[in-house]
């Protein structure tokens, strides 16, 4: 069991900055994120795009903002559980919480902060009515272990990098690889597109373009896909296959948090913005893009503000008997849990003779 003072769900800019504000109050933080790296959308979706409304930064790349935040919070030694999605929350008798992830990792903390942005990133599922029936029975959205496909027939759908790269990789392992894409154009690294073209010419990849999978067939497990050519229902083909792997990128979903008993409005968690951004569950806060209140703005800078306010409230919750007086970092410096100390240079008084 991982123990911490503040458990933060979501390692985007707001979650990361919470570590700093909590650290100033000598509270330790641990972050959970479904993505394999910290930074949230800034790292996953637009690391190379500029942001112009971070106070004090006329222009900063989203990826650089994340790097800076990681540097800023380093003295406070945050823990990370990455690549795992927060699934369930349990309230203990002493009003503390246990949060368990998709891989069963348990986290215990008196305060839980949801800084989940738009939610966790999950694979986009094609709108095929029977697709859920075949999940783990021939249909997979993520390839965890390529060996599963050894000597099997595989149908991959999609036109981006992951569809191209996996087709190439599986061409050597699977019995047969078919790549289905709606258009003739593929968008990916030039190397990958050329390699697929080459493998297609020698028959290692069956390229099926201007087509899409519209239905799945099978009894207990997937046995065939129905391929529609050029959008015409008359031009349908039933192709026997052991597996179907649709690769259409990731999209954010609020996910299991929606079932935690929190008050939710339009995919966002309602909080008390007049005071401390606490949700309807005492001890559970929501900050950044994931929350909503009258006048809410989904801006990184607003998430930072909410983090600072929320940490004060969390401190009172954890130490009800203590009175905390807010201090300026310029005056008091920053003392890390790693023993580091940053502070403004002191003026010296020395007479010149």
């Amino acid at each position, binding site marked *: 069991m991982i123990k911490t003072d503040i458990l933060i769900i979501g390692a985007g800019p707001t979650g990361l900055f919470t570590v700093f504000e909590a650290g100033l109050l000598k509270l330790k933080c641990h972050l959970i994120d479904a993505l394999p790296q910290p930074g949230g959308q800034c790292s996953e979706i637009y690391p190379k795009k500029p942001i112009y409304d971070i106070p004090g930064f006329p222009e900063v790349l989203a990826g650089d903002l994340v790097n800076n935040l990681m540097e800023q919070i380093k003295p406070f030694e945050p823990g990370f559980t990455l690549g795992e999605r927060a699934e369930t929350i349990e309230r203990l008798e002493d009003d503390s919480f246990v949060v368990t992830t998709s891989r069963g990792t348990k986290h215990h903390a008196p305060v839980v902060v949801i800084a989940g942005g738009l939610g966790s990133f999950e694979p986009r599922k094609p709108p095929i009515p029977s697709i859920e029936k075949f999940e783990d029975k021939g249909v997979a959205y993520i390839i965890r272990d390529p060996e599963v496909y050894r000597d099997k027939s595989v149908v991959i759908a999609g036109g981006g990098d992951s569809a191209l790269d996996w087709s190439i990789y599986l061409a050597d392992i699977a019995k047969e690889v078919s790549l289905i894409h709606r258009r003739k154009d593929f*968008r990916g690294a030039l190397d990958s597109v050329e390699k697929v073209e080459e493998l297609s010419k020698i028959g290692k990849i069956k390229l099926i373009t201007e087509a899409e999978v519209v239905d799945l067939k099978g009894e207990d497990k997937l046995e065939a896909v129905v391929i529609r050519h050029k*959008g015409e229902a008359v031009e349908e083909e039933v192709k026997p296959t052991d597996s179907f792997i649709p690769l259409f990128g990731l999209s954010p979903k609020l996910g299991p948090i929606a079932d935690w008993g929190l008050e939710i409005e339009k995919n966002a968690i309602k909080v008390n913005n007049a005071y401390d951004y606490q949700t309807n569950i005492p001890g559970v806060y929501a900050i950044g893009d994931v929350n909503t209140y009258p006048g809410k703005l989904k801006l990184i800078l607003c998430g930072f503000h909410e983090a600072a306010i929320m940490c004060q409230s969390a401190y009172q919750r954890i130490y009800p008997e203590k009175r905390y007086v807010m201090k300026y970092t310029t005056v008091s410096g920053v003392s890390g849990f790693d023993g580091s100390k940053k502070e403004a240079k002191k003026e010296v008084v020395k007479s010149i003779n």
Partner: protein
Amino acid sequence: MSDIKITIIDREGEAHLLDAPTDMNMNLMEVCKMHELPVEGTCGGMAMCASCHCYILNKENLLPEKSYEEEDMLDQAFFVEDNSRLGCQIPITKELDGLELKLAPQQS
């Protein structure tokens, strides 16, 4: 005021004749949100989520060409047709007065 009129057919088939300002640096996705049509605009207009996916019913030749990002996103979207566009990539300009479009089905 420099508004134009745009007709947006929602997912239930109901047509909405809406005013869209040309002087506020807005795009089609934002016009939908402004009028509280069920368009999420999840990614905020970066052509990265397809929640503003729509079908253009007229004046298609007056729209800006699709960028690499828009084509890329449409490749990953579903229910894509020849007249599919992402609303967030279409700025509101005077020429688009009388534009008609239909919202694409919501994606899972």
